[in-house]
């Protein structure tokens, strides 16, 4: 009995205390006390929370880093591939432009039949101005056939194998080409040199040759077809004491950048050496 009375009393007291505290809290009287009690708790929770978050970020960042690295590698590989493709396409474009120009040249000169060839090397000896092309007797190439580009005369075939041929350039020191100078129509001989420069010799003194005149093959001698452009006169040397005039020629073909050439396959050079009189012959 006594015990139940005491419990009831305790409950009532507790209820009063709770109600009192609630009333005090509602009245704002407990705020300093609350602040005092909550602050350490908030601080502790913030500290713990920030550490947990940092650990979480670290874990996530390492995952992201691996993904980013992987992605970076993929993109780098893609960039390399695209760059290689661009280079290949540029090369194809350049080849197409050259081939297109060569086709135009072939259309403009329908009297000849051509075989296109790539220049695959130069003579291993620096004394010789020759190039090696990737077409040979299997493609109908024969010794002596003239070689041109869309710009003009390159040289002629001097040696042939089944799949390759050697071309003597007109700038070779041993090369000589019979030419005609326009508009004077004077005949002369075009000579190569060690330095790769072209010069004209045997120009008659009576001929009127000027800077800027065009130099074309004359067809004389039977080694080259006529009317193939060779170059332009850049200087003329005329001395009264000499039998002939001389001139320097700027070739229209850039021999240092030969890539694709055309071989005129329906032109057969003539061997006129038996017709040239030799000393002592009857």
């Amino acid at each position, binding site marked *: 009995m006594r015990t139940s009375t005491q419990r009831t009393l305790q409950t009532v007291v507790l209820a009063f205390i709770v109600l009192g505290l609630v009333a005090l809290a509602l009245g704002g009287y407990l705020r300093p006390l609350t602040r005092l009690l909550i602050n350490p708790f908030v601080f502790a929770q913030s500290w713990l929370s920030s550490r947990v978050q940092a650990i979480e970020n670290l874990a996530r960042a390492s995952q992201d880093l691996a993904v980013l690295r992987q992605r970076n590698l993929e993109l780098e590989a893609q960039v390399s591939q695209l760059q290689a493709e661009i280079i290949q396409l540029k090369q194809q474009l350049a080849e197409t432009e050259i081939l297109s120009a060569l086709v135009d040249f072939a259309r403009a000169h329908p009297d000849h039949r051509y075989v296109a060839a790539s220049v695959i090397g130069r003579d291993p*000896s620096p004394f010789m101005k020759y190039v090696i092309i990737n077409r040979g007797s299997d493609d109908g190439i024969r010794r002596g056939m003239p070689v041109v580009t869309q710009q003009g005369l390159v040289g002629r075939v001097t040696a042939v194998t089944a799949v390759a041929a050697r071309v003597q350039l007109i700038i070779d020191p041993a090369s000589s080409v019979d030419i005609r100078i326009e508009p004077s129509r004077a005949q002369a001989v075009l000579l190569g040199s060690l*330095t790769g420069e072209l010069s004209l010799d045997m120009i008659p003194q009576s001929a009127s040759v000027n800077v800027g005149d065009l130099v074309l093959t004359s067809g004389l001698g039977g080694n080259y077809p006529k009317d193939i452009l060779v170059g332009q006169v850049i200087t003329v040397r005329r001395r009264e004491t000499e039998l002939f005039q001389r001139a320097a020629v700027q070739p229209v073909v850039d021999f240092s950048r030969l890539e694709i050439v055309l071989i005129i396959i329906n032109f057969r050079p003539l061997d006129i050496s038996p017709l040239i009189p030799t000393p002592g012959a009857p």
Partner: protein
Amino acid sequence: MAFALGFPIIALLTILQSALFSHMQLYQGYADLVLLAVIAWGLQPRVEADWHWAVIAGLVMGFTSGLPFFAPVLGYLLIVSLTRGLRMIVWQSPMLSMFVAVFVGTLLMHAIDWVALRLVGNPMPFLPALQLITLPTLFLNLLLAVIFWGIFQDLANWLYPTELMV
């Protein structure tokens, strides 16, 4: 083995010289890789296949180049004679003999080419040829001499290992 290796190595060097090094000109000259290979190989002690390499080099160059066919063959054979002589005389200083051989070999090779062209009716003016072709080629050959010496020394050591007394 050394003889068998000669052909692919000389062929590869000829291709490199024709397709690549011929574009790297100094005036009108460019490095002669085949000459350097023949010299570097010929100067290696214990190497005996140097004559074979000279003949292979002469044939390949004679076939590839527009020079008269006999000129490279004769030139490389003379150069092997030179390297054999140097091997006996300057055996204690192989690098010195390499430089001497490259110097003399380049001049000798170009002299033979010059005479050969004159013989077949394509004479070259002497001084321009010397100034524009021979001297630049000589300079480039001397620059590459050390590299070739190193490569062919390794090749010789691999093909002719030194016998050790145990």
